[in-house]
């Protein structure tokens, strides 16, 4: 049933008892034309666009837990496209443009809110870096503007622009089209739309092995719900990509780190935008429910523990309290961690591998949520046609051999 004003009204009078399940939970078939590993936002989006734009109906998404239960449900939901290099600008801007029409496309409210993303500069290096980003973005038509501290406070009134603090704000870059979206709704919306197009979403179905034929090409997946035959596998497993790819003897240029986030108790609206400070590791926005959503940094060491060191979170809260003195007496309600897969150049890997039929979409590191629709869209093209989408073409695994890195790590000087 579509979400519409008429149906809403009809259900309101019928006691809301007629809403059907949002997606099917079928038993696995013996074989599929293609299988996506990982039912997070990226994997579900890929399946949706494979069904919608490439006519693949006999496909499945396998998920070891529940859909949207990994990093999709754990991130701080920041959307923006103000990256430095042209390859990244094309990829993230492609995603941002899809965000703009996503609720209509999916017939599901993903609560996309272009409220503006303010990135704070605290020193000369930041100023030079952000101004370089502003100019690079302007040249390709992506909005990004430079603000003086007073202008930044006018945009975000709770910001402390006193010059008498440890890391004073000396300016900020603002992308007005950036903002937030509701993370769960993105997973649910894609799952619902993909399921309606015939995609089987198989939850509690953990991949245990990748079977290959005599020629080395993939022939199927061993899972906790039995063997599934398929000629095409698209791995979209975020922090566990190295583990899944290891089943096909493919080694990846990835390291997995815990990344933490926190939410405060809910309060009335005090914050109209997203504020990020890469330099002192503090990211904050306010959800529609009223809680402040705060992002922290990664731990220093690789881990799959889905938790992180307390000192990492408290370091971020130090910064938050200094930047936003008004929140100092708020209590934190929850703190959690997700495992992010980080590449050496902090850019994702989308494409083919040396194993025929095995495709991978990974390496989104600490900032994959913003790319969800774009990532899924270009990965769907890559898996369906067997060749990279033009936007995804530079993001090959092979770039680590050729040296054509897309170095957003050096561009931003920190993970982001």
């Amino acid at each position, binding site marked *: 049933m579509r979400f519409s004003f008429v149906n809403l009204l009809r259900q309101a009078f019928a006691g809301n008892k007629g809403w059907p399940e949002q997606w099917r939970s079928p038993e696995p078939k013996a074989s599929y034309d293609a299988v996506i590993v990982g039912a997070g936002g990226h994997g579900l989006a890929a399946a949706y666009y494979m069904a919608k734009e490439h006519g693949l109906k006999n496909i499945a998404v396998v998920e070891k837990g529940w859909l949207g239960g990994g990093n999709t449900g754990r991130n701080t939901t920041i959307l923006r496209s103000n990256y430095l290099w042209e390859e990244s600008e094309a990829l993230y801007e492609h995603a941002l443009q899809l965000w703009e029409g996503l609720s209509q496309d999916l017939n599901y409210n993903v609560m996309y809110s272009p409220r503006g993303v303010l990135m704070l500069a605290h020193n000369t290096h930041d100023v030079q870096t952000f101004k370089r980003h502003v100019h690079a973005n302007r040249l390709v038509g992506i909005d990004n503007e430079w603000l003086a501290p007073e202008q930044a406070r006018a945009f975000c009134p709770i910001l402390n622009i006193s010059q008498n603090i440890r890391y004073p704000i000396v300016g900020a870059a603002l992308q007005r089209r950036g903002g937030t979206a509701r993370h769960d709704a993105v997973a649910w919306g894609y799952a619902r739309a993909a399921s309606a197009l015939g995609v089987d979403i198989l939850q509690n179905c953990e991949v245990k092995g990748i079977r290959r034929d005599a020629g080395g090409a993939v022939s199927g997946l061993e899972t906790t719900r039995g063997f599934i035959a398929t000629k095409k596998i698209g791995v979209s497993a975020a922090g566990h990509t190295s583990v899944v790819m290891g089943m096909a003897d493919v080694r990846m240029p990835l390291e997995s780190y815990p990344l933490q986030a926190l939410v405060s108790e809910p309060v009335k609206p005090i914050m109209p935008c997203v504020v990020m400070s890469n330099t002192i590791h503090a990211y904050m926005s306010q959800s529609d429910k009223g809680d402040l959503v705060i992002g922290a940094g990664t731990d220093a060491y690789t881990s*799959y*523990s889905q938790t992180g060191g307390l000192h990492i979170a408290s370091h971020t809260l130090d910064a938050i309290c200094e930047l936003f003195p008004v929140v100092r007496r708020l209590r934190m309600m929850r703190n959690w961690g997700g495992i992010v897969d980080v590449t050496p150049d902090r850019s994702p890997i989308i494409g083919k591998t040396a194993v025929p039929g095995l495709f991978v979409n990974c390496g989104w590191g600490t900032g994959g949520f913003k790319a969800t629709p774009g990532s899924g869209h270009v990965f769907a093209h890559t898996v369906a046609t067997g060749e990279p989408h033009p936007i995804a073409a530079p993001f090959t695994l092979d770039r680590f051999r050729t040296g054509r890195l897309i170095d957003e790590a050096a561009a931003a000087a920190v993970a982001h």
Partner: protein
Amino acid sequence: MLLIRCPYCEMERPELEFRHAGEAHVARPADPETVSDEDWAKFLYFRANTKGLYAERWRHTHGCGRFFNCLRDTVSDKIQATYKAGEPRPEATR
């Protein structure tokens, strides 16, 4: 926060005294000029990223300043052993 035993200082110290330095036992090719691009990329970028017991390097930056190796379970973050650079990886204990 991890508590890490520096095998040189022979003391257990909080993680903040140390700096993580990536996977251990990744040997730099002896003669870089003869190494293919593929092998060079493997040396520079490709890592085991093991879920489970993992050998990694740490540096005691706020102590003796020396590099050493550490055997840690990346699921529980429990450290099984730390050992000096150049020593072989110890056997896993359960």
